[in-house]
């Protein structure tokens, strides 16, 4: 489904590369995790996949179903099925979650050649998902993410994930700053959406979330490159022994 090959990327107008030849394959229905020390490029990678304009891809390719998406706009990537649950979701003053998601879902259905949902159909779906994700219904009447607590923002990301049903969902440190209850909600969201067609890429610093979501593949990202790829047992190993050995190897 997603094939990343020898990807080099840096911050716009900066010389130093953050991603230095990253290669990774994710098949349909697979759950992958990227772990690694801070500053290794995890968040950069998640954002580069969605085309955040702060980053520039210098070389390499990102293929989604054999189509290179490196030159596509973020919205074009989203319409092709990519989704990013943000580490720090932006606050959108004056825009209500309902209105925002309606616009997003309309765009998606339009791209797929489907008619937009009626306001009634949309409301029904929206209310169901709000309840499922456990968001305070009063909260979604406010401006999107404005004045939301950290946990509420993350739940709101899960609401959007459930509404938009992407083919590849990237979770950028969604677990950071969450209490156990919120963590469980995120995990339940992901687990309930797992299907043979839908893949996940979970970016995390800690193994904690992986107690609830069992990944198929674990990658270690250090200094802009994947340095090790293995099964779920790798996460536990890292939890025990830390990233030191990788850092030493990278420095050496």
């Amino acid at each position, binding site marked *: 489904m997603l094939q990343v090959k020898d990807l080099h990327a840096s911050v716009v107008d900066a010389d130093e590369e953050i991603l230095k030849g990253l290669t990774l394959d994710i098949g349909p229905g697979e759950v992958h995790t990227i772990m690694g020390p801070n500053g290794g490029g995890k968040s950069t990678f998640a954002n580069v996949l*969605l085309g*955040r*304009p702060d980053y520039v891809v210098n070389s390499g390719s990102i293929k989604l179903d054999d189509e290179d998406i490196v030159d596509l*706009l*973020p*919205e074009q*990537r*989203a*319409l092709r099925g*990519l*989704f*990013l649950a*943000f580490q720090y*979701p*932006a*606050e*959108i*003053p*004056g*825009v209500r979650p309902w*209105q*925002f*998601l309606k*616009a*997003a879902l309309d*765009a*998606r259905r339009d*791209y797929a050649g489907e008619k937009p949902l009626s306001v009634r159909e949309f409301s029904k779906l929206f209310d169901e998902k709000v309840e499922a994700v456990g968001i305070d219904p009063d909260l979604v009447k406010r*401006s999107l993410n404005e004045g939301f607590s950290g946990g509420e923002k993350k739940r709101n990301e899960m609401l*959007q994930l459930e509404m*938009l049903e992407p083919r590849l969902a990237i979770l950028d440190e969604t677990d950071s700053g969450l209490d156990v209850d919120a963590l469980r909600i995120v995990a339940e969201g992901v687990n309930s959406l797992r299907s043979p067609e839908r893949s996940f890429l979970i970016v995390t610093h800690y193994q904690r979330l992986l107690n609830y979501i069992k990944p198929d593949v674990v990658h270690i990202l250090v200094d802009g490159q994947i340095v090790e790829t293995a099964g779920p047992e790798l996460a536990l190993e890292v939890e025990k022994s830390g990233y030191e050995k990788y850092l030493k190897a990278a420095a050496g």
Partner: protein
Amino acid sequence: MTLATARGEKYAVDFKALTESRPVSDWMSELRQRGWDHFDSIGFPTERRGNELWKYTNLAALDSAVFAFQRDEPGEVSAEVINECAPWSDDWTTLVFVDGRYSEMLSHVSADAGVEVKNISDAADDATLRENLAQHAAVDESAFSGLNTAFLADGGYVKIADNYEATSPVQLLYFTSPGASRASFPRTLVVAGNNSRSKVIETYVSLGAESGFTAPVAEYVLGSGTGIDHFRVLVENEESFHIGTTRVYQHDNSNFTSTSFALGPKIGRNDLHVLLDAPGAECTLNGLYLTTGDQHMDNHISTTHAKPHGTSHQFYKGVLSGNSRAVFSGKVLVKKDAQKTQAYQKDLNLVLSHGAEIDTKPSLEIYADDVQCAHGATAGHTDPEALFYMQSRGIDQKTAQAMLMRGFAAEIVDSIGIPALQDFVQGVTENTIPLLQAAAD
């Protein structure tokens, strides 16, 4: 003869013609003459050096423009056009003025026992009118108060009885008709009795594309414990000059809430001053301005706290694009006696193009020692983080930007609270967003 004299003579000719064609009662005639004398002695404030009040707004183009003053019958406006171009509800009382002249035929009155609504020139015998007219916007306060008073004729006069809660809003709707470059000097006076509640809308709309000049003066007097929700809606064309003066006088524990919406003029000025002249008075002055092309909108907002326990809010928001320019010059003066004053000022701007410019200057002048005041101003492009967030959900950049602009305006628009008016302002904003976007970088 210099050119300046020639222009002065232009208004002089119109003034003389008016006194002949539209005679008014003696006291009004006297006011007119005082107004003319003041304007005639100072002319337009075109001086560029040391002219603090007009520092960011150059009136040279206004000074050199020539307009036809409407002495006789106003230009024609149909009821259909009104419905299209102005806020309207059959539940309201709306007095319609075309080119400064009252049109009984186009006006619509909804009976409301405690609310008197009249054309000023038909109310010369009204003692309250006489006591208050030109008392709060002094004739010699500025060139524009002078000029407006010199041409005193028609205008909206609203009187609300003591302890009366108005059942529906009153709108004073001032049109400039198409077909000529017209000048008009609308006058508004609202006197709200003690403990009354009312909603008053002043609307200024230019219907044609010609350059026009509108210099309204409005005075509001709030009795003890009185509440007025005031709205000032400006939808002028981009060749027009609009220099508006609003003066508000508040007695104790009164509450004046004002929302200004400004769209269009080549040179626009919303000069609003509120005097909190008794304890416990409160005012909230909100505004939204949208500018593009070569438009220029100057919001000159000031509040004077003269007595203790007053509260004031100034909250203006602007969206600027193209080569337009906007000014927020907000002032709060807290006098020595005005202890326990609370005053807040905020001006937030979305600046969408490099050619656009905002001059924002919130300022506090405080002579009391026990006060709570805060002010702030921002100017920036649509938040790139917010844009990326929305795009990452599949919303294209243009749509996302429009949603952000709509959201930015919503804080003011959604607070209007009169459905037909809110719908109108929302509609105009919605139609303007693509124009702002088209002129953005």
